[in-house]
């Protein structure tokens, strides 16, 4: 709210802020107030949530050269003034019954594991990085605009088909708030607290007839920002606006939502979720990393940077378990609510088989099997992964193929047929001796199923050519053309 204009030391001439900017500020502040009210209303039940499930099949993943499309001009979007306030729905969203919340929490974990299984299937020496929560949130937003078999397919993919659409929306929005709330704690050392931001946004083709109920529901359940852009005439400009948003909500970590083909002039709606996490370890690792051997699935041994916790001559206390099939440790971040769970298969088991066997129940058993252990040292690689995933294929395989084809998005608009053009996610995860920085942006583009099929007309056979007066019908010339080359 407050602007630092150095007015104590060097008075700056006052220039009134424009009413439109103050209106924007008012709306943003109002959204903060409503969010705070809902969090207060639901209390702060503790939840156990694996905030980031990390699979590093090999360390040392390389950061790709960062795109440099950050330009300096004004943002290419405008606020859609027609956004509606839905106070009634907001309060309803805040009083969700707990069985619904539990079902959605369970579904999120299950979804994350099934998705990971899809992405790791086949094994091989490649890393997989995915932000399941971001993807699930974007799909839950999409589901609000779907109907019939499409709605059911998305719900089935997310694992929430037993709940009504309204219950699902309430469940996801509550989980969203709880996860954000989990980053805040009661530690006096606030500067060490994790920073976890989630943001949702909806972009609409300017002038496109979106159902108001869709916009209302997104605002009520997901506090979704709303923008209009011109995909039809300026898809590149729209992409710049989307990318700006992504960068802004991930502290510059993610600078692109869609790659080539993700949005085009047929795109009418884009749904996006951004997540940004910066968390310090509750107990830091030694700042000195050292190279040590890491064993690839192929049997090859490489030299990778490792970080370790082994105070000279001392011991390390950790919640861990060392079994015959896997070794695991839970590494809490400062604040105590978020942690990283590291699991390494042992006894000849491969990581993709371990992942294939994971379910919410088995993951819960692994967590339950952790116990306070005194270790001589704790060592794991530091790593830096970046992924750019096109998720159409795995999501189709998981049950929502219909959304990409003959979809029913009558919740978004009843005027034209729409389908999902692309689901993409860019993610970035850095694990260092200090902590973890992770960012991800998921984008779902929804577009016209096709331009209307216009018949083409080619006269390439003998034809009759008649010049006539349209009013009287009088025929002025007649030609029967058998061979257009002959005279």
């Amino acid at each position: 709210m407050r602007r630092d204009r150095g007015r104590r030391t060097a008075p700056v001439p006052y220039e009134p802020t424009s009413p439109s900017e103050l209106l924007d500020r008012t709306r943003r502040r109002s959204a903060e107030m409503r969010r705070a009210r809902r969090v207060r209303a639901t209390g702060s039940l503790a939840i156990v949530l694996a905030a980031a499930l990390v699979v590093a099949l090999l360390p040392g993943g390389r950061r790709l050269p960062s795109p440099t499309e950050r330009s300096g001009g004004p943002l290419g979007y405008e606020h859609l003034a027609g956004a509606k306030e839905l106070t009634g729905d907001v309060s309803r969203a805040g009083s969700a019954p707990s069985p619904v919340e539990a079902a959605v929490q369970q579904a999120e974990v299950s979804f994350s594991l099934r998705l990971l299984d899809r992405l790791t299937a086949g094994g091989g020496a490649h890393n997989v990085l995915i932000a399941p929560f971001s993807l699930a949130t974007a799909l839950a937003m999409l589901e609000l605009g779907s109907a019939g078999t499409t709605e059911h397919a998305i719900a089935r993919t997310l694992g929430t088909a037993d709940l009504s659409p309204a219950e699902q929306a309430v469940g996801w929005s509550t989980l969203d708030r709880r996860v954000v709330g989990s980053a805040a704690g009661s530690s006096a050392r606030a500067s060490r607290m994790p920073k976890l931001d989630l943001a949702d946004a909806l972009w609409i083709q300017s002038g496109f007839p979106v159902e108001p109920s869709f916009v209302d529901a997104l605002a009520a359940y997901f506090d979704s920002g709303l923008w209009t852009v011109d995909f039809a005439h300026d898809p590149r400009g729209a992409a710049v606006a989307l990318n700006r948003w992504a960068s802004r909500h991930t502290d510059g970590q993610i600078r692109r939502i869609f790659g080539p083909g993700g949005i085009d002039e047929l795109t009418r709606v884009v749904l996006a979720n951004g997540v940004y996490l910066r968390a310090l370890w509750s107990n830091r690792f030694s700042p000195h990393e050292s190279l040590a051997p890491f064993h690839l699935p192929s049997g090859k041994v490489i030299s990778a940077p490792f970080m370790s916790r082994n105070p000279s001559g001392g011991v390390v206390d950790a919640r861990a378990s060392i079994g015959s099939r896997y070794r695991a440790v839970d590494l809490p971040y400062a604040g105590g609510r978020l942690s990283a769970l590291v699991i390494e298969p042992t006894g000849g088991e491969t990581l993709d088989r371990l992942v294939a066997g994971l379910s919410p129940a088995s993951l819960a058993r692994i967590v339950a099997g952790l116990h306070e252990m005194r270790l001589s040292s704790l060592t794991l690689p530091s790593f830096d992964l970046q992924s750019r995933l096109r998720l159409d294929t795995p999501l189709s395989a998981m049950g929502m193929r219909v959304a990409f084809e003959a979809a029913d998005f009558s919740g978004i608009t009843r005027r034209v047929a729409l389908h999902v053009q692309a689901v993409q996610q860019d993610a970035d995860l850095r694990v260092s001796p200090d902590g973890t920085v992770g960012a991800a942006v998921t984008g779902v583009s929804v577009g016209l199923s096709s331009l209307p099929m216009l018949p083409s007309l080619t006269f390439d056979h003998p034809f009759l050519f008649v010049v006539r007066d349209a009013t009287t019908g009088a025929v002025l010339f007649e030609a029967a053309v058998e061979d257009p080359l002959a005279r």
Partner: protein
Amino acid sequence: MSEEDFETFFARMLPRAVRVGRRVTGDPWLAEDVAVEALAKAHARWARVGPLPWRDAWLLKVASREALRHLRGKPGLAAPPDRGNESDEVVLRAALAAALARLPRRQREAISLRYLCDLSEADVAAALGVSAGTVKTHLHRGLAALRRSLGGELEGELAHET
């Protein structure tokens, strides 16, 4: 009560809320913050606030309360006003805010609405849900208490145009 209604309300009330903020704090930037805070409270509760017949007064009451809160809680933010003897005026504003804070709630609200927000006594009565006579009583008693606290400077301050 639609978003469109709110925008109309916003356009009408923004200048008045800023004026209240500026009158209380003496700081044009802070006055904008005060106005945004008050209008955001209205926006967040628009389904309830929108239909109120005295919603204008409701907003001004919230704005004056926000402004006084700023002045009491963060005296440094109230400086510097853009004219007059700065240090004297800052002291006077802080003293006024402190004196207002010591008044009973109804007297404080009546004085804020009548003198800081320029509402008529009838509008103040509607906003507070009391009779015009009761408003007169609150104003009379409140002003008397302020005079005792602040002496003669009060009259000039309340009549002050920004």
